[in-house]
């Protein structure tokens, strides 16, 4: 390549001015969603590590309570139902968003947030119950890894609810502008991703944990 010239040849005339940057956008129009997907994949690795820890330590009871003794499947079934329902209600919100109908969308988002809040409430009650019967995270390796894995998921859901509230106030203020739609799609991916992780949690931790 020759050196970049800063002077015009006289014959060039009124051609286009020299530019030293790309004048056209080189990224895809929905690059944000791809970037957010990459984030979700890295989050997936965090959960993979926590699942691996639970897989290694999940049967080390140290003379303490076993999974079959402390894990209550009916409560987990309710939690699973709540999270699955919140996934489909978020899906309905996305459908309303695509049709630019703001108030039904806000209604579905509110229901989603309430279902998520119920999920967190039930999970916190389960944790409080475990701690109260002396099965806190310090009791055994099994309970340490259990609280870390399930607690990390619960923390993600809590963050998702806070994000949902912030986003709803943004939509209420600015309406369904493209930026808000993009944010809603990111939260949609986040929310459904948490449901995917929960599938792993209830299968690997709860259902397999109570097997003899």
């Amino acid at each position: 390549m020759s050196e970049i010239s800063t002077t015009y040849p006289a014959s060039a005339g009124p051609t286009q001015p020299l530019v030293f940057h790309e004048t056209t956008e080189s990224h895809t129009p929905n690059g944000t969603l791809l970037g957010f997907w990459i984030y979700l994949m890295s989050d997936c690795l965090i959960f993979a590590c926590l699942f691996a820890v639970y897989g290694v330590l999940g049967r080390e009871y140290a003379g303490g309570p076993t999974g079959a003794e402390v894990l209550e499947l009916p409560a987990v079934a309710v939690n699973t139902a709540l999270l699955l329902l919140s996934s489909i209600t978020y899906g309905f919100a996305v459908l309303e968003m695509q049709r630019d109908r703001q108030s039904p969308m806000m209604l579905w988002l509110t229901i989603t947030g309430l279902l998520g809040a119920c999920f967190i409430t039930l999970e916190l009650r389960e944790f409080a119950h475990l701690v109260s019967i002396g099965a806190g995270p310090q009791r055994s390796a099994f309970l340490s890894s259990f609280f870390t894995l399930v607690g990390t998921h619960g923390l993600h859901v809590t963050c998702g609810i806070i994000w949902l509230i912030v986003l709803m106030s943004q939509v209420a203020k600015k309406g369904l502008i493209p930026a808000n739609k993009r944010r809603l799609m990111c939260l949609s991916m986040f929310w459904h991703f948490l449901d995917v992780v929960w599938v792993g949690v209830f299968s690997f931790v709860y259902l397999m944990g109570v097997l003899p």
Partner: protein
Amino acid sequence: MSAHDDTQHAHDDGHGHDDLGIHATFGGYMTGFVLAVILTVIPFWLVMGHVIEKSSTAAVVILALAAVQIVVHMIYFLHMNAKSEGGWNMLALVFTIVLVVITLSGSIWIMYHLNSNMMPSMMDPANLP
């Protein structure tokens, strides 16, 4: 039926004025939801009803159903396909799955062997080399 109407609307509007590249449909969400419910109820029923006697068999069945359900969620809720984002979504996903499988199977495999080689009998000074 309203399901059909919703599908049509979502398609029409989706193409018009957002370039998010995702066209969710009512039918897609409902298919995913029904499949997810079925795939959730079966493992809970298997465990809570003590259907399978052998623990290892039950564990394999539960994990297999979980894997299928995760795929269902990916396709119907997260709208994954080979074409989204020009294939980069799928590439990142495949890469992540490879890492997840290495992390999980590697950890459990190695730690299992470490455990079985660290039985109390090995700690007896008489058995040490």
